[in-house]
């Protein structure tokens, strides 16, 4: 039992945080908890005072030529600084509700053995940066926040907080896409918000650290990692995972039986040789 918790401790905590955040928003909308938080992941007001805003949405608004309010800038800055410190894609693995869907697809894909059949993924993980760029160009040309009009992330959290509509279809499509078409397809290849946070978290303080001496090369970490390219150093070099695409989900840490991976504070360049 203890080892079960040890092997899933971050996953359990992540699910608690993800569900908890959604619950607070739902409470803010339906049960009068708006003194805690109101709004949704696009923009919200914490404790009736602190504005929080999606910096990527703010960027699209800027590209679309909208007048940007001070509140929005403050909100976007708070979020950018926060994720800039704890790890950009901490949003993806600890907050974003789509993560639950894609993790479920990934779990099933592994269980059913699709990964055995489809060993090599036929798409580039850099697609998300192209989509990120494209979304800003389209926002500029069309004069609307282009990604916000199709974002399955927003569709999902709005569906949870404000009511479903046909939102379930978007969730189902992402699930099926990740299950049948592309491993880690949405979160690991396409999502421009993930791309944005990869860039925003490039210099984050919390990073996974690899200790090569302890590593037995069992590769459990690489199997479980949704962005396995960031673990290139495993069993090779004792360095930190500095790639912004690492989501700090902690899966690699909890599956490691040899204490070869752990969360750490980023080492400053001077300390390295």
């Amino acid at each position: 039992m203890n080892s079960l918790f040890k092997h899933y401790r971050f996953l359990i905590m992540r699910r608690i945080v993800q569900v908890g955040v959604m619950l607070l928003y739902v409470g803010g909308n339906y049960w009068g908890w708006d003194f805690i938080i109101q709004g949704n992941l696009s923009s919200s007001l914490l404790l009736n005072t602190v504005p929080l805003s999606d910096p990527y949405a703010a960027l699209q608004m800027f590209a679309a030529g909208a007048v940007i309010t001070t509140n929005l800038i403050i909100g976007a800055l708070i979020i950018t600084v926060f994720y800039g410190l704890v790890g950009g894609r901490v949003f993806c693995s600890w907050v974003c509700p789509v993560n639950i869907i894609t993790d479920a697809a990934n779990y099933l894909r592994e269980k059913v053995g699709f990964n055995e059949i489809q060993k090599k993924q036929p798409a580039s993980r850099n697609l998300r940066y192209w989509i990120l760029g494209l979304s800003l160009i389209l926002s500029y040309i069309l004069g609307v926040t282009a990604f916000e009009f199709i974002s399955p992330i927003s569709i999902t959290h709005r569906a949870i907080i404000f009511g479903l509509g046909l939102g379930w279809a978007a969730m189902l499509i992402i699930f099926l896409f990740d299950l049948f078409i592309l491993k880690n397809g949405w979160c690991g290849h396409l999502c421009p918000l993930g791309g944005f946070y990869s860039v925003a978290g490039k210099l984050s303080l919390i990073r996974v650290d690899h200790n090569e001496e302890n590593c037995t090369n069992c590769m459990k970490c690489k199997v479980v990692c949704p962005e396995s390219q960031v673990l290139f150093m495993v069993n090779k070099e004792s360095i930190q995972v500095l790639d912004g695409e690492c989501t700090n989900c902690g899966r690699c840490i909890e599956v490691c039986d040899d204490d070869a991976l752990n969360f750490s504070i980023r080492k400053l360049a001077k300390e390295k040789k």
Partner: protein
Amino acid sequence: MVSERRKFILGTARATGLVALGGLVWSAYVDEVTANKLILRPPGAIKEEDFLATCIKCGMCVEACPFDTLVLAKPGSNKPLGTPYFEPRDIPCYMCPDIPCVPVCPTGALDEPSVTTNGELDINKSTMGVAIVDDKNCIAFWGIQCDACYRACPLLDEAIFLKYEKNERTGKHAFLMPVVNSDICTGCGLCERACVTKDPAIIVLPREVALGSVGDFYVKGWDKEDEKRLVNAKEIKTTTKLSEKSAMDSLNDVGDLY
């Protein structure tokens, strides 16, 4: 031998092609959903094209609305996804004096100054839409006394007033016909909600859909304010070159008419 350079060029070309294809589908979809002009926005909403760029779709106006009037567009509703709107026949805007939906907007898509008079919020200044009467299907225009919309209007006798006219058919009754003053109507939709006909004979439409615009060429000579527009007006002289053809030609040469 495949050189790295050729691989790189092909890779970039493929990515560019994919992005172009994606961009086409993406922009077509966005164009499609934003083309819907028949959508009523919350009070204080800025111009629709600016609104689409500025609204961050956080739903705080929806949460603030005590009557559940406002909803966020869901997938399948064929409206710009996630933006707030209302449908008056379901739930109209009850025009709260403190306008809770507007000050909460974090992006200014709902503009507080536009619904403020002398530093105080003034819902009567809002322009969500304008009510339009379908006089063929309004029973008051048939001569039946109704005045449901007139009574429902929060700006009673101002935004909707009754026009009296003799009913020549009966010879002894009067028509009490509702007429909307579009300068005052806020588009709250309480009239549309109250209308007794099967489908409402008075409906609220976005102002840019329902109202015309005169342009700068006409000046109300009887209106002192409007006439001031002429104070700095300059004379514009247009000279049209005289046709070199003779007048006879222009009368007889009718070939161009076909």
